[in-house]
C-alpha cells in the first residue's frame, strides 16, 4: 500500500473528534439501510443470489473501461489499459471461481464425517478500499458480498472517492434491478477519519474489511470488531541460476509495470545469482529497462524515497518510468518501461530496498545461494512479512527452501508476482483483490480473501454411529478333549508356560501328548503368583534362548496373561510395559501405540485351567507391580492369543474356592459387558448366554466338582463372557476389585464378588453423572439388568422389581458359593481400610476398566462403594432407586 495512505490514515484509531450530530444521523441512515438489506437478504436462495451476481458481473465487464478511465482521471496513477484488465479480472475471473460455489444454506455435505456445512451471512460489512486498485476492489467486494448475502458500506480512499462511488452505484443499481434488497451497497460521501472510526465501532457492523495501508489495517483490528485487514508488502524475488531467464525477465517486467506497479504484490527487489546476474541485466536492458549507474541510482533514491520516513514518495506511486526519470533528471530512452537500480544491502541505508509501487526495481547480486536467501529474508522482513514472494528456479529443493524460509502468504513460482498473487491467471490461487498477510502483516489470514471470508460457516454435526467391532481369536476349540487339536499346529520349539501345581496335576503331560510330533518342548515353570515383571523377564529369556516358535500358556488367567506379555516382549523387546499401561480414555484414541507390524515369532496357544478370566480370548493382560502394590492392565488386540483351547478336563482339578472365585469373575465379566456403553448386539448375545450358563451351572460345578457337564458349561461360559468383555469391556466393578485386590491381596474373583451387588445397584440407579457415550441411546443399564432377570425367569413386574430380583439372585448365588458378605468379614480392620481408601480410590479411578461403565463414577461415589462393600450386602437391593425415572 502506498505512502499517501500511510500518512492520511495512519492516525485512524484515535480521531481527535467524533463526527457531528448531523453527520452521525447520516452515517446511522447508511447503517440502518444496510441492516435492513442484510436482514432481507437472509431470505434469498442460492438461485436468487447467483442470478444477481451474474447480472452484476456483466455490468462490471460492460463498465470496465468507463470505471478505469474515471479511476485514472481521479487518482492520476496507474495505466488505463491495465485498470480495464483489473476491473475485468475482478468480474470475470472472480465470477468463474465463485459461480458454481454454494454460499446459501447447505454449502458442503461431508457424509463420511456426518457433517453438513451451512452458510450464515455476516450481515453488514464496512469496507475500506485503496487508492491503488480503487474500482477493481469495489467491483470485487460487491460481487463477493452479493454471493454471500451481505450488505456493504464502502468508505473509499478520499482521493479515489468519485470513481469508487460510481462503481458502487453501478453495482447497486444492477443488483437491486435484479432483486437485491435496497440499501445493499452504500458509499460514505467524502469519508473522513472520524466517519471511519464511527462506523468501525458501530454495533451493527459485523465485519470490517479493510484493504489499505498499515493505518487502516491497524485501525480495523483495533476496533474490537472482527476484521479482515490486508496491508502492504515488499516482494522479494529470487532469480536463481537454474531459472529460465527469458521467462523470468519478461514476467518481472509484465508484473512490475502492470498498472505502473501499483499492485502491492508486485516485485520490489530481484536477488540474482552471480552466475546469471550480468546476463539477466542485459536481458532487462534489451527488453526496455533502463539500468541506472551509481550516480543515477543516488539521484533516484533521493527523489522517490522520503529520506525522513524511509517510505516511497506518494508522488511517484503509479507513475510511468519515463515520467519518474524525467522528474529525477535521468536521461532515458522514450519507451523505457522500468528503471533498475543496483542495491548492495537491505535497510534504511539502502533506500531502494523498500516497497516501491512504481516501475523502479532494485537488483542485488548474490555470490551464493545462502547469500541470496538471506537477502530475500531481509527484504521480506523490511515491510513485506506475510505478503508475497517470487522465485524463478528449476531446482525443486531451492524452491522448497525458499518457501520454508520466506514468510509470505503467496509464494509465486516461475510467474509474475502481482498477477500471480491475484490468482486464477498464472496459477490456481483463489482470485482476489485482498491479500491476507497473516500475523506477519498483522492480519488474521494469509488467504486470498474471497467468499469463504465473507461467511460464517456453521457445522451441523450429526451423531455418528462409530463403527464397532467384534474381535476374538480366529480359532477356539472347546468341549472335552479339545486339546487333541493341538497336534495340527506345527512347531519346532514350543515353550509351555505353566506353574508347579499344574505340572503336578499331570496337565503338562496331557498337553505334551497332543503336541505335533518332533516338536522340541521346554517347560517354563513360573511361580504360583499373578504375573510380575521379574517373572516375565525370565520367561522372555527362555523364549530367546530356545528361539521358540510356539508358546503354550497352560494355567489360569495369571499364566495366560504372563505368556501374553512374554510374547509381546519376545517379539518387541523395546516395548516399555510401564508406558504401554499408560492411562487412556478411549482405546482407539489413546496416545500410546503398541508395537505395530512386529514379526510374529511365536504362535500363542492358550489353554485355560480355570473357568473365569477368559484370558484365552481377551486382548488384556493384568500385570502385578509388587513394588507399588498395584495391578496394571495392558489392553491391545495384539495381545489376543492366536488359538484358544477350552478343554474342561483341565478344570476338573479346581478346588472349590477357585471354582467359586473364577466363576464369579466370569459372571462379573458378563454383567459388566452387558451394561457397558460399548455393548452391541454381538456382545449382548455372548454376555446373556454366559450369565444364563453361570446361574445354571456354577452351583453344580461348585457343589459337585466332578460333574463334567457343569464343568464344561462353566468353562464355555467363561470363554463366552470373555468374548463379550473383550469387545464391550468391563466396568466399575473391575476397577474397584483391581484396586482393592492389589492393596489387600484378595483374589480377583473374591474382590469382584465383594463389590458386585453394590455395583449393580449403583448402575441401575439414576446416575449422578451420565457417561458421555456415542454408542448408546438414553440410559439403559437398568433395562439391561431387567432383561437379564427375564432371561433367568426371576419374575417381577416393573423394571425396578426385576433389577431387585436380579441383585437378590446374585447375592443368593454368592451365599451359595460361600463368599464373605463383607470386606469386614475378611478380617480387615476398619481403620486400616479407611487409611487405604484414598489410595484405592485413586487407583480405581485410574483404572481403564470403568471407561465403558454406563454410569460415570465420581470419586466420592467410589469411596461410598468401597464402604458399602466393607459394610456388607443385604443393603444393595434397597439402594437401587427408582430406575424407571430415567
Amino acid at each position: 500500500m502506498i505512502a499517501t495512505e500511510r500518512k492520511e490514515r495512519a492516525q485512524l484509531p484515535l480521531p481527535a473528534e467524533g463526527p457531528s450530530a448531523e453527520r452521525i444521523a447520516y452515517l446511522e441512515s447508511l447503517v440502518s439501510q444496510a441492516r435492513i438489506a442484510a436482514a432481507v437478504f437472509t431470505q434469498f436462495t442460492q438461485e436468487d443470489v447467483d442470478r444477481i451476481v451474474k447480472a452484476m458481473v456483466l455490468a462490471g465487464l460492460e463498465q470496465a473501461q468507463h470505471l478505469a478511465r474515471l479511476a485514472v482521471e481521479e487518482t492520476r496513477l496507474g495505466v488505463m489499459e491495465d485498470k480495464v484488465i483489473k476491473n475485468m479480472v475482478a468480474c470475470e475471473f472472480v465470477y468463474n471461481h465463485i459461480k458454481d460455489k454454494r454460499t446459501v444454506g447447505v454449502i458442503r455435505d461431508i457424509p463420511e464425517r456426518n457433517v453438513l456445512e451451512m452458510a450464515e451471512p455476516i450481515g453488514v460489512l464496512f469496507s475500506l478500499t485503496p487508492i491503488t486498485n480503487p474500482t477493481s476492489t469495489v467491483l470485487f467486494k460487491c460481487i463477493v458480498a452479493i454471493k454471500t448475502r451481505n450488505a456493504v458500506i464502502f468508505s473509499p480512499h478520499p482521493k479515489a472517492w468519485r470513481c469508487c462511488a460510481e462503481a458502487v452505484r453501478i453495482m447497486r443499481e444492477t443488483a437491486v434491478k435484479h432483486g437485491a434488497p435496497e440499501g445493499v451497497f452504500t458509499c460514505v460521501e467524502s469519508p473522513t477519519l472520524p466517519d471511519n472510526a464511527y462506523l468501525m465501532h458501530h454495533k451493527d457492523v459485523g465485519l470490517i474489511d479493510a484493504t489499505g495501508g498499515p493505518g487502516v489495517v491497524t485501525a480495523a483490528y483495533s476496533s474490537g470488531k472482527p476484521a479482515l485487514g490486508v496491508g502492504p508488502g515488499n516482494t522479494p524475488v529470487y532469480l536463481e541460476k537454474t531459472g529460465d531467464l527469458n521467462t523470468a525477465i519478461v514476467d518481472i517486467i509484465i508484473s512490475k509495470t502492470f498498472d505502473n506497479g501499483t499492485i502491492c504484490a508486485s516485485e520490489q527487489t530481484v536477488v540474482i545469482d552471480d552466475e546469471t546476474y550480468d546476463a539477466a541485466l542485459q536481458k532487462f536492458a534489451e527488453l526496455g529497462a533502463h539500468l541506472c549507474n551509481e550516480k543515477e541510482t543516488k539521484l533516484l533514491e533521493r527523489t522517490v524515497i522520503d529520506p525522513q520516513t524511509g517510505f516511497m514518495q506518494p508522488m511517484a506511486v503509479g507513475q510511468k518510468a519515463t515520467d519518474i526519470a524525467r522528474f529525477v533528471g535521468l536521461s532515458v530512452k522514450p519507451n523505457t518501461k522500468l528503471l533498475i537500480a543496483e542495491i548492495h544491502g537491505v535497510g534504511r541505508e539502502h533506500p531502494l530496498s523498500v516497497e516501491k509501487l512504481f516501475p523502479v526495481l532494485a537488483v542485488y547480486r548474490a555470490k551464493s545461494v545462502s547469500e541470496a536467501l538471506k537477502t530475500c529474508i531481509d527484504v521480506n522482513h523490511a515491510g513485506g512479512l506475510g505478503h508475497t514472494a517470487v522465485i524463478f528456479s528449476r531446482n525443486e529443493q531451492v524452491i522448497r527452501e525458499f518457501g520454508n524460509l520466506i514468510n509470505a502468504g503467496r509464494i509465486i513460482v516461475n510467474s509474475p508476482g502481482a498477477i500471480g498473487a491475484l490468482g486464477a491467471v498464472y496459477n490456481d490461487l483463489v482470485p482476489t483483490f485482498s491479500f491476507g498477510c497473516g500475523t506477519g502483516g498483522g492480519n488474521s489470514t494469509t488467504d486470498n480473501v474471497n467468499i469463504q471470508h465473507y461467511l460464517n460457516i456453521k457445522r451441523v454435526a450429526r451423531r455418528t454411529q462409530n463403527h464397532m467391532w467384534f474381535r476374538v481369536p480366529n480359532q477356539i476349540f472347546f468341549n472335552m478333549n479339545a486339546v487333541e487339536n493341538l497336534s495340527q499346529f506345527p512347531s519346532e520349539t514350543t515353550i509351555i508356560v505353566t506353574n508347579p501345581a499344574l505340572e503336578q496335576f499331570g496337565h503338562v503331560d496331557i498337553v505334551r501328548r497332543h503336541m505335533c510330533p518332533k516338536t522340541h518342548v521346554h517347560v517354563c515353570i513360573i511361580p504360583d503368583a499373578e504375573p510380575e515383571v521379574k517373572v516375565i523377564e525370565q520367561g522372555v529369556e527362555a523364549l530367546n534362548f530356545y528361539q521358540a516358535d510356539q508358546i503354550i500358556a497352560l494355567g489360569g488367567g495369571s499364566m495366560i496373561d504372563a505368556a501374553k506379555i512374554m510374547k509381546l516382549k519376545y517379539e518387541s523387546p523395546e516395548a516399555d510395559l510401564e508406558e504401554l499401561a499408560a492411562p487412556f480414555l478411549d482405546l482407539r484414541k489413546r496416545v500410546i501405540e503398541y508395537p505395530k507390524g512386529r514379526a510374529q515369532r511365536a504362535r500363542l496357544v492358550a489353554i485355560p485351567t480355570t473357568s473365569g478370566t477368559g484370558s484365552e480370548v481377551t486382548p488384556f493382560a493384568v500385570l502385578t507391580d509388587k513394588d507399588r502394590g498395584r495391578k496394571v492392565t495392558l489392553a491391545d488386540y495384539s495381545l489376543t492369543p492366536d488359538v484358544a483351547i477350552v478343554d474342561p478336563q483341565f478344570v476338573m482339578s479346581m478346588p472349590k474356592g477357585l471354582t467359586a472365585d473364577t466363576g464369579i469373575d466370569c459372571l462379573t465379566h458378563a454383567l459388566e459387558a452387558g451394561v457397558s456403553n460399548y455393548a452391541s448386539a454381538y456382545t449382548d448375545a455372548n454376555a446373556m448366554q454366559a450369565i444364563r450358563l453361570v446361574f445354571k451351572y456354577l452351583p453344580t460345578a461348585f457343589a459337585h466338582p466332578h460333574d463334567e457337564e457343569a464343568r464344561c458349561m462353566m468353562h464355555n461360559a467363561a470363554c463366552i463372557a470373555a468374548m463379550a468383555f473383550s469387545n464391550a469391556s468391563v466396568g466399575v466393578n473391575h476397577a474397584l476389585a483391581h484396586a482393592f485386590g492389589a492393596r489387600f491381596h484378595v483374589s480377583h474373583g473374591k474382590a469382584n464378588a465383594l463389590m458386585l451387588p453394590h455395583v449393580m445397584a449403583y448402575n441401575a440407579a439414576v446416575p449422578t453423572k451420565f457417561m458421555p457415550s456415542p454408542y448408546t441411546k438414553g440410559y439403559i443399564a437398568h433395562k439391561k439388568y431387567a432383561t437379564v432377570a427375564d432371561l433367568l425367569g426371576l419374575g417381577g413386574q416393573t423394571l425396578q422389581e426385576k433389577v431387585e430380583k436380579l441383585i437378590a439372585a446374585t447375592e443368593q448365588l454368592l451365599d451359595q458359593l460361600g463368599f464373605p458378605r463383607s470386606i469386614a468379614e475378611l478380617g480387615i480392620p476398619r481403620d486400616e481400610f479407611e487409611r487405604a481408601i484414598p489410595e484405592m480410590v485413586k487407583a480405581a479411578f485410574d483404572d481403564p476398566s470403568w471407561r465403558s461403565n454406563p454410569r460415570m463414577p465420581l470419586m466420592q461415589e467410589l469411596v461410598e462403594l468401597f464402604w458399602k462393600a466393607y459394610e456388607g450386602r443385604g443393603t444393595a437391593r434397597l439402594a437401587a432407586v427408582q430406575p424407571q425415572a430415567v
Partner: protein
Amino acid sequence: METNTLCLKIDANNVIADLKQAEESLDARQELALDFSGVTRIDSPGLQAVQRFGHRAEDKKTKVALRGVSVNVYKTLKLARLTSRFSFEN
C-alpha cells in the same frame, strides 16, 4: 381498562399499504393483531414499513401481535432488530 383485539390480515403483495391502513386502527384501548401468515418473504420497503409501523404503535401505546409469521420472516425481523416491538402468536 377494557381491551378487545382487532385482527387485520396482511397481504403478501401489499405489505406497505396494509400496514399503512393498520396504522389507522392503532388505539391504546385496543390490542391489534396482524395476520402475517400469507407473507413468506419480505423485502426492504416492506421491512421498513414494519419498522415505521412499530414506531407508530409505540407512540400510540398499542400492543401489537404478529400472527403466523413464517420462520424466515421472523429471522429477518430479528436481524432488523424489530422483534422486541411486537408479540408473536402462532
